[in-house]
């Protein structure tokens, strides 16, 4: 893993210097106009803009070296120090080590309701409880009705004759009723 890190470190040192001197300001000029920041820099004078830029660069470099220093202090020079600091800070240390409990808060507020809601309401409730139940009940109803209706097909000739007679009587009754009306 050392070689990639060396390459990246080299590129980050070199990469920072390339932009100095405004070499890329008009790189995409035909498509993108200069942004408001560049406009502002032109209006307030290049010098002021450049001063702010250098100041910010300085601060960020100092911050990087600060991190370097503290890492050296805590992990290499005085490795017993972190435990002492942790003890001294107490609750604050706990909160920081748990990232201010953001993950836990997020899990309670969003993840759990979403998963529970999707499981009970959407999947078991709507998908299986309403839509699928309707479909399955329709199929069951069709089977049940047919199951009852098949009793008509008893193979018993006398019962068939009975059905024919009953049907005939119904038709005649209907015709009489229509005629009377």
């Amino acid at each position: 893993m050392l070689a990639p890190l060396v390459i990246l470190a080299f590129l980050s040192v070199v990469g920072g210097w390339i932009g100095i001197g405004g070499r890329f300001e008009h790189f995409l000029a035909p498509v993108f106009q200069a942004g408001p920041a560049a406009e502002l820099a032109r209006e307030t004078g290049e010098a002021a803009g450049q001063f702010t830029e250098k100041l910010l660069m300085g601060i960020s470099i100092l911050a990087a070296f600060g991190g370097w220093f503290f890492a050296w202090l805590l992990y290499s020079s005085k490795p017993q120090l972190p435990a002492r600091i942790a003890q001294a800070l107490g609750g604050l240390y706990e909160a920081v080590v748990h990232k201010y409990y953001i993950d836990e808060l997020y899990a309670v507020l969003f993840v759990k309701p979403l998963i529970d809601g999707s499981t009970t309401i959407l999947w078991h409730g709507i998908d299986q409880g309403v839509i699928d139940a309707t479909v399955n009940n329709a199929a069951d109803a069709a089977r049940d009705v047919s199951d009852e209706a098949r009793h008509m097909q008893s193979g018993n000739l006398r019962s068939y004759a009975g059905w024919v007679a009953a049907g005939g009587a119904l038709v005649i009754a209907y015709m009489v009723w229509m005629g009377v009306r």
Partner: protein
Amino acid sequence: MNTASLNPIILTLVTFIPALGGLLILFIPRRDRDIKLFAMVISLLAFVASLHLPVHLHRNLGGFQFEIDKPWIASPNIHYHMGVDGISVWLVVLTTFLTPLCVLISWKSIHERVKEFFILLLLLETALIGVFTSLDLFLFYFFWEATLIPMALLIGMYGHGRKVYAAVKYFLFTMIGSMFMLAAIIWLYTHTSPNSFDFAEIQRQIHAGTIPGFSTAAPWLFLGFFIAFAVKVPLFPLHTWLPDAHVEAPTAGSVLLAGVLLKMGTYGLLRFNLSLFPEEARSNAWWIMLLALIGIIYGALVSLVQPNLKKLIAYSSVSHLGFVVLGIFSFTPAGLNGAVFVMLAHGVATGGLFMLAGILYERRHTYEITEFGGLATPMPKYATFFLVTVLASVGLPLLNGFIGEFMVLTGAFEARPVYGILAATGVIWSACYLLWMYQRVFFGKVTHPVNNTLADLNLREKSALVPIAVAAIVMGVAPIMWLNAIDPAVQSALAPYAQYMAKVVGQ
């Protein structure tokens, strides 16, 4: 040899090579290896033949090409009329692309009735291609229903678990939906003069306004076609057959079901509902888009909590196909181009996901996510292919899922900004359920000792997965190779809308 001379018969060849191969398998003795090899050769032959189409397609033309129109039955007036445009040509190629991979992936997983399996697979391929190439409504309906039988048998005979329940459910759902379409097709045939099942002729008569009673019947005809297609897509709330069918189906069945069969629905919406009934499509768009939107979010949320790998992928299809419908009914060029591209991208990515799930099933005989965990350690190559496919499905830029979804969202936003914004959350949801699933299956420590012994991909499995990964990357990097054929077809599909709008504005 000048291959352009094949143009008039190429569609017939591409459509019927698989079925012919399937018939020939009947005469091969039951030596499984021979049958598999023969099925492989046939499906590759169909794929090579289908490549003729995009190579010789005139990409700047929007209309149908490679047309063949022969009278088939004199009365009723049925023609053998086939043709493809820039939209259907890719769906044909998608079908022929996925079928050889299906053969490869079924090599070891099918042990019984091998002969029947590959016959059914090849018959299914012919029916699927036929759906995309038919320009005669009768022929279209024939192929449409012909896809049902092999697929139901593949699920019912070679599936697992409650396979018969799933097969019957799939059959009934889509069959009942199709009945409405059949009624609409017959109405159109009986009211056109001269009576015709021909798509172009019916479209011409509708636009000329010479069909008596059309304006009163049109809303019902629109719905008739719509229900058949909406079940197939599947659009919320008609989607519950899909998870069952997918979970119980054999791997090859799932791949073709998700990869191609669902696109029959969206293709039908695009080809028939949009082109034949522009006014009804416009006036019904708001609730269809709403259903699509519900499908996107609802499908994603239900997918999130699935404990079963295959069910998770099945519900993700509900979500992704929602994007397609949303794009189609945005009536914008971006939305329609995107919809067609999502169809293809979803076919490749979800087809790939089902193949990967099947590979895992062959090793562990379960799809339960909790049975896995830490698989990246014993199966690094498998994990890599899985990640590429998952990322393609999520819609990572430079992979194929991104292009289509982005265009659909652009189109939806143009048409109805609120819909566009809500649909955009679907992209986040898909990252949630797929990446979370990936994390639970592959990352961390191996939780079940048996998983330590799992073999990584073998050569056969790799050669089935490489085409998927390559297609996902190429389609993501160079989508213009597809879009320059899709766009003219989309523009001509949208032409009635421009006229319609001009008419409304002109009044």
